[in-house]
């Protein structure tokens, strides 16, 4: 059986691989969306935080003997803490200014982090092995899926849905959303808004780091790994609608699949298909697919 001239097996295989990539897009764009939604900061350091997460896992394994499972918890915590420091030291002074300042600041931070790690670890990258428990592959009939990739999709979906639930369905989430609408009023009700904002940035950073830890066994841990990915992730956020949580999750997964299928039909276009979609979406729905019109 064939679909558009492609054997069904190959088609299903590419669909699944697209979903794996989409899981990364979703998790990264989710963090960006949360930070933008609640802080109004276009966080260009997100790719660098993702890279830091992967490096944290590598350093923990090679210098401290902490294995993958430990790193899965500790790396996001460490990078989240760094996020808190960044928010306290730099970002909090910029909330009253044009969003452009936050963008430039975080872009600068990203360049600094990348530079430091390139100086320390070189440009060729470091190898991080797939954890024992998840190594090997499962034959699905139409393709051989490495177990680790299945694990990535599972974790990413859980994390994304958990974050969405936290923000859209819980009391804490309600405070967060209210804080973005009218911080002064929420403060008057006795909620510590600056603390909340600080923790939000920390959580966004931790999400990026978690994606980094998940990516470490798949690709080389490399100082430039974040900047290779971040532009696509921004396009995902723009397509989904800035600040829309569910929007960025669905768009991330969807675009991963679209990109995967493009690799089958016209591989040369696979690196730009996301941007072509972005242009089309911006022409017809400037606020993004799931964004609210201002």
């Amino acid at each position, binding site marked *: 059986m064939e679909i558009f001239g492609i054997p069904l097996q190959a088609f299903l295989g590419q669909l699944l691989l697209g979903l794996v*990539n989409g899981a990364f897009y979703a998790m990264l764009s989710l963090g960006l969306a949360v930070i933008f939604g609640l802080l109004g900061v276009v966080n260009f350091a997100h790719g660098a935080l993702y890279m830091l997460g992967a490096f944290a896992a590598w350093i923990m394994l090679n210098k401290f003997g902490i294995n993958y499972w430990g790193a899965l918890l500790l790396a996001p915590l460490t990078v989240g803490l760094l996020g808190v420091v960044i928010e306290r030291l730099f970002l909090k002074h910029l909330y009253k200014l044009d969003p452009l300042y936050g963008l430039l600041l975080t872009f600068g931070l990203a360049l600094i982090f990348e530079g430091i790690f390139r100086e320390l670890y070189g440009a*060729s990258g470091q190898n991080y092995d797939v954890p024992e428990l998840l190594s090997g*592959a499962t034959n699905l009939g139409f393709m051989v899926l490495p177990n680790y990739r299945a694990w990535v999709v599972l974790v990413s979906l859980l994390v994304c849905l958990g974050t969405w639930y936290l923000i859209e369905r819980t009391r804490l989430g309600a405070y967060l959303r209210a804080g973005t609408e009218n911080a002064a009023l929420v403060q008057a009700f006795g909620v510590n808004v600056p603390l909340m904002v600080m923790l939000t940035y920390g959580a966004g950073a931790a999400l990026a780091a978690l994606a980094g830890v998940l990516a470490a066994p798949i*690709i*080389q841990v490399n100082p430039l790994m974040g900047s290779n990915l971040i532009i696509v992730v921004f396009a995902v956020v723009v397509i989904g609608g800035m600040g829309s949580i569910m929007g960025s999750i669905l768009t991330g997964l969807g675009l991963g699949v679209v990109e995967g299928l493009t690799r089958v039909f016209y591989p040369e276009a696979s690196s730009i298909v996301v941007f072509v979609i972005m242009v089309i979406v911006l022409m017809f729905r400037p606020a993004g697919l799931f964004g609210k019109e201002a």
Partner: protein
Amino acid sequence: MKLKTLVAALAIGFGAGAFAQNTGPVRIGFITDMSSLYADIDGPAGGEMIKWAAQDFGGKVLNRPIEVLTADHQNKADVASSKAREWMDKEGLSVLIGGTNSGTSLAMSKVSTEKKRPFIAIGAGSARLTNEDCSPYTVHYAYDTVSLAKVAGTALVKAGNKSWYFLTADYAFGYSLESDAANVVKANGGTVAGAARHPLNASDFSAFLLQAQSSKAQILGLANAGGDFTNAMKAAKEFGITKTMKVAGLLVFINDVHSLGLANTEGLQLADSWYWNQDDASRKFAKRFFEKYKRMPSSLQAADYSAAANYLKAVQTAGTTDSDKVMGTLKSMKFDDFYSKGQIRADGRMIHDMYLFEVKSSKDSSTPWDYYKTIAKIPGEQAFTTVAESKCALLKK
């Protein structure tokens, strides 16, 4: 008034340029990727090797001090060519050495031809430098895409690996590596089952690998480099491609093998011009490098040293830094140092032995960085473009 100042400034500039050619310091320029994906295989350490060559020469040639200038081209051809132009016009540069990235080297070769200054390309792979785009002032010193394809391709096809599938980086370098390798495969009676093109700096290779696997070819030829190579290799292992296909890396440096680890690269066959553990003289050089950088030198870093040292010898012999005389001397010299034995042909191609290596398994590797065993040593005449194959007019005289 303003015009006068400008004219005066220009006059001084031109004067200084012409002046610096024959007296004052002998300046060697080195432009490479200092900070991005190719920085480990060449980069700042490559620049340091040229400085070492100058120091070991005594710091002076023809009683003039030797100065080494270095710059980062950021993988942009226009940055490389404008820096080259600036150095040649204002610093009276005697020779330019080009690092990684073929696009930048092709651009620098044009500038140096226009300015009539020797240009020694080392890190760049494109065989165009001494073929379609050859120049009387360009030397291609270390390796090129043709030699990589001939060395790795011939050996593998002769060993019975007849059918190939290519995974190719979607830009000039990838295309020429793929087509050079495909020609070699076909010339030796093999077949090409297909090719997938991936964008430069792609982070995900799984989709392309799945296509490669369904081609049922025996060999997966990776016509890419650096981070693309390491990520493709890693994914090939993860998806079990290495169980059904043999992987051939068409441009692999020892830094790539080191960063992937032997577990991911064991059995990989690759072509290179030099390996640190090939003989005593190489080991001596490598030891000195290791003491400073805590890693072993790549073939490019060894070639950087060798090329600079041989250029200085040529200047000494010619008794001048005059471009035409030095180029004449360079092409008449027989090189013999730790890097290689060889000679520069009229088209600028340095003809020397090339090697086919195989990556050892971790149990065969006895010391750190003990990664390769030599499978074959291919004489330069067989490894590089032959005079009959070449389109370079300089060879047809």
